């Protein structure tokens, strides 16, 4: 059975801190790994990773994938209160168009 495990489950930091969120996975015929941010409602897309070792970056957020060790990390530097959200990791197994298999998410709270 395909499985995605995220850690930590929750995290409280102060503004300006750097955080690292972890995602490990076991899937059949891995295609890609995606990170989403969920605030009040819909998950919004952050990154899609398909190749090992290539860092994806968007402002203060960055992510990297290790296909040998089957994990990914999401880094957020200089955190702001607006970064408070649930961060979801999801993996796409098998073919294009297939379902996303989600982890439970990491709840991040940034205190001012």
């Amino acid at each position: 059975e395909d499985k995605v495990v995220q850690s930590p489950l929750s995290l409280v930091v102060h503004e300006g801190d750097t955080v690292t969120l972890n995602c490990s996975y076991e899937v059949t015929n891995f295609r890609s790994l995606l990170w989403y941010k969920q605030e009040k409602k819909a998950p919004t897309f952050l990154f899609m990773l398909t190749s090992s070792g290539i860092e994806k970056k968007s402002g203060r957020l960055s992510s990297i994938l290790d296909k040998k060790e089957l994990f990914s990390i999401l880094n957020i530097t200089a955190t702001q209160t607006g970064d408070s959200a649930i961060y979801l990791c999801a993996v796409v197994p098998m073919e294009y168009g297939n379902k996303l298999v989600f982890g439970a998410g990491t709840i991040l709270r940034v205190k001012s």
Partner: protein
Amino acid sequence: EPEVTQTPSHQVTQMGQEVILRCVPISNHLYFYWYRQILGQKVEFLVSFYNNEISEKSEIFDDQFSVERPDGSNFTLKIRSTKLEDSAMYFCASLGKQLFTNFGPGTRLTVT
């Protein structure tokens, strides 16, 4: 920027009643999905739809559930006889050439 839309945002229904949740996916997308998230739990895959038919469904998607794409734009999820445990946030999603799944804002279904 195009986005997935869903109606209604909140639906309250009595146990045993039928509900129809509606979605308008992004117009040039080819793959459509329904996911659900019970409060405090993981986002779970329900069903995927491609080329006017179901391409995959989960164990949750039993005979009480059905999906339809009645015209070129709408995508609906019907629950025939709702149960208390169907209470959840239901997300519609679509996938196009950009290769990441776009989620709608969700419909919160409350079954009393």
